[in-house]
Every structure is written in structure tokens, then in C-alpha cells.
């Protein structure tokens, strides 16, 4: 076991050490996590427009698809944040596991939450779901054909021309119980991940202390519940025939 002598190390080594310290890596988790939270809120707000009907939803989809380079910059940024979030988590989890090689016969947990205990597992569920979700709606390589129709390529006729009818793909997809259940379960995982993650972010940032402790301890679960309920409301509404019945 080496005792740390940072003052005698070379400047480059010191920089690497500083950037890969436990706290620096936690800051990376927090920042990339915040990018994810921002995306998830925006994504939910956008998709909730499905409640406004086919035209409103397809208008929104057309606008987003028409952003050109901006769309690709955003996608690149989001994927980079995701990759960093996952890679940093792997490094931190390995360090944590190495720190306790021998397990207790029984250690009582008094204060933690289920979400906190299973952050990594929830993260893995979310990663798998994100891959499926992108393959489904963004790239259109799975769950596109229903009843002999390719809904990913389906067009909606408008006054001037035709455009992609993403509304139809959305509705028909969630009418499939398997897809709807997968989606609901993934969003429960997302809600739990956000509940612990958002609060943790502000503890890592050193903000959630003193009078700000309680607001940020509430913010995490609140955002988790909002995102969970918002997203799950869509497949439920489709199931209930509240939207997309015609």
C-alpha cells in the first residue's frame, strides 16, 4: 500500500490523478447524468404531444427531423454523455468492489434506499432499453412491421405532400402488450434511477447541504415520479383507447 505523495509526482501524472480521482469521476457522473435528465424531460414533453392527436404529433416529429446538423450535434452530444456515464460508472463500481473484497456475514442497511442499492443494475436495464428503443423508433430495425405494414416508413398525406406518420408507428407499437410492458418496466427503472441519481448529483456538486438539502432530496424522487408517470401515461392511454382509437 503506497502512501500518497502528490507533491513529488510529475505534473502530468498529477493531472491524470486529479482527473481520475473518485470525486472527479463522480463529477463526471453528475454532469453526464444531468445531460440525461435534461434529455429525458425534453423527450417526455415532446412525446406527450401524442395526446394532441396525429397532426400535432407529426408536426413536432417533422420539426425535430428537420433540424439537420443541429439534430446530429445533439445526438452526438447525448451519445457521448451516455458513453461517458457508463464508462465512468464501470470504473467507479470496480473501485468500490475492490474496496471490499471480503463480504460481511450480514451488514444491516439502515438509511439507504432500494434505488440507491441497485443503481448499477437499474443502469444496465436502462442501457439495454435505450439500445432497443433507438433500434425501434430511431433506426427502425425492430418492431416496425405489424399486420404486414411497415409503420416505420408509413406516410401521412398532407395538403402539399406526404410526410412520415410517426404517430401511427407510436400508437400501433404500444398496442402490442409486449412492447407496452417492456416500456412501462423500463420507465419504472428510469424513475428509480432518477430518484437517487438526481439527488446524488447535487450532493456531488456540494450544493445539497444545509437549507438546500431537503429541496434536493425531494427533487430526485419528484423528477423520477414526474418522468415515470408522464412516460407511462402514454402506453396506458393507448391501451385504454383514450388515444389512437380511430
Amino acid at each position: 500500500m503506497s502512501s500518497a505523495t502528490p507533491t513529488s509526482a510529475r505534473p502530468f501524472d498529477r493531472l491524470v490523478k486529479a482527473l481520475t480521482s473518485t470525486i472527479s469521476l463522480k463529477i463526471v457522473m453528475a454532469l453526464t447524468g444531468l445531460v440525461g435528465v435534461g434529455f429525458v424531460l425534453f423527450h417526455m414533453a415532446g412525446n406527450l404531444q401524442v395526446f394532441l392527436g396525429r397532426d400535432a404529433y407529426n408536426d413536432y416529429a417533422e420539426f425535430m427531423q428537420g433540424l439537420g446538423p443541429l439534430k446530429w450535434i445533439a445526438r452526438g452530444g447525448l451519445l457521448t454523455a451516455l458513453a461517458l456515464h457508463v464508462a465512468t460508472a464501470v470504473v467507479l463500481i470496480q473501485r468500490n468492489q475492490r474496496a471490499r473484497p471480503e463480504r460481511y456475514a450480514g451488514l444491516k442497511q439502515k438509511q439507504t434506499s432500494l434505488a440507491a442499492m441497485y443503481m448499477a443494475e437499474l443502469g444496465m436495464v436502462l442501457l439495454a432499453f435505450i439500445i432497443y428503443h433507438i433500434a425501434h423508433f430511431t433506426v427502425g430495425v425492430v418492431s416496425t412491421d405489424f399486420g404486414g405494414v411497415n409503420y416505420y416508413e408509413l406516410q401521412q398525406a398532407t395538403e402539399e405532400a406526404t410526410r412520415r406518420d410517426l404517430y401511427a408507428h407510436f400508437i400501433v407499437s404500444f398496442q402490442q402488450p409486449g412492447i407496452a410492458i417492456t416500456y412501462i418496466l423500463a420507465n419504472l427503472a428510469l424513475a428509480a434511477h432518477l430518484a437517487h441519481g438526481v439527488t446524488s448529483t447535487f450532493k456531488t456538486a456540494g450544493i445539497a447541504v444545509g437549507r438546500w438539502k431537503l429541496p434536493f432530496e425531494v427533487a430526485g424522487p419528484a423528477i423520477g415520479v414526474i418522468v415515470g408517470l408522464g412516460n407511462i401515461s402514454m402506453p396506458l392511454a393507448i391501451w385504454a383507447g383514450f388515444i389512437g382509437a380511430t
Partner: protein
Amino acid sequence: MDIKLKIWRQSGPKQAGFFEDHRVEADPHMSFLEMLDVLNEQLLEAGKDAVAFDHDCREGICGACSMVIDGNPHGPRAGTTACQLHMREYHDGDEIVIEPWRAAAFPIVKDLVVDRSAFDRIQHAGGYVSVGTGSAPDANTIPIGKRESDQAFDYAACIGCGACVAACPNASAMLFVSSKVAHLSLLPQGKVERKARVRNMVAAMDAEGFGGCTNHGECEAACPKSISVDAIALLNREYLYAGLARD
């Protein structure tokens, strides 16, 4: 009262450990460590090896005693060291499981004794004030806000026992490190070196192989001095400040 014990025995750092069963006739007025003293007298009389455990002041201020009792570092009572735990907490016929702190950075020396010199090395990396402060100044010559002095005092209560590491699912030492950092950086004498202190203590903490904080709060629940997990957020803030602020 008749107490059944399941105690971790390990003859040396490299040897394999195991749980050993014992019975002790304890008195409700005994402290937990006195109950272990009785067990050791029994073992010695029978020509067996006594159970090694750390203890010193036995009045809850030195931080030497260190054992996980039924899954609780320092036992089931909140804000209490193992030496201040008494047998009146237990009932006749109870079975108690005792094991050592478990962390890679706290290697087992023997039975329940672990080597906590990793904490000393972290402390040496910056947990001090190196400016000459002379003898204790007269009261109120350096104005310190009531809030700051109360907070600093709360963090200064850390006795370095390692229960935070023992309780943390990641064997993280961040409550210990943050208590030292928060305590010193809140006070004018300690502020001078705050940047170097937090950088060097965090580097030392990482070098010792402790895990990282994932905000479970188990350390706070286990701390015999009830130090708030807020200290860790303050440590993160200090670390950010050290990285971002210009001198």
C-alpha cells in the same frame, strides 16, 4: 444472562478466517467489551487463544474499539461506540454475531483487530494546520461565526474509528476524510491551506484503496459521533473549489 457468541477468528492477515461459537455468562451491567473480557478469561483458563480486539479508553472517545455487532458497526445503539454498549441491551439466550471491519484498506491483523493506519496516512497528507498558531489564543481574539464554530466542532468530533468505512456498501472513507476537511476548512487557521489539503487528502484516500461515496448515508447512521453525511457534500464542494478557484 446466558449469551451465545459467534465470533470471527483469524490467526493472521493471510490466514483464512471463520466463525467460532462460544457461550458467556454475562451480567446486564457489564459493558460489551467487559463481556468479551469474561470470554477471554474463559478461553485462557481453558488454555486457548484469547479473542483479539482493539480497545483503549473504554469511554467512547478514543476510537479504538471496532467491531461489527450483528451487522452494525459498534453495535445496535445509534451514536454509541462498542465500548459504551452495555449488556442490558440484550436478553438472556440472545445470540450475537461479531466480525471485524471489512475493507481492503483495513487489513485484518488478528481476529477482530484491523490495521487502520490508512487513516493516519490520509491525516498526514493534509489533516492539520501547518502555520505556527502559537499557544491557544485568548477567547474571541479571532472572530468566528457561531454557525461556523458549531459546524466545525461537529465535524471535529470524528474519532477516526472507521465505522463509516465499515458501514459503507463501497467501503468508502469519505465521511472520515470529509469530517477532517470540513472541520479545518471552516476555521480561519485552517482556511489558508484548504486547497492543498483537500487535494492531498483525497489523493491519499484514493491511493489507500477506499471506495467512493454513492450517497447511501449508511456512514451517518453508523457514526458513533453522529457526524452528518452533509460533510461529504462539503468535501465535494471543497474539491471543486480547489480545482476551479484561482489563487
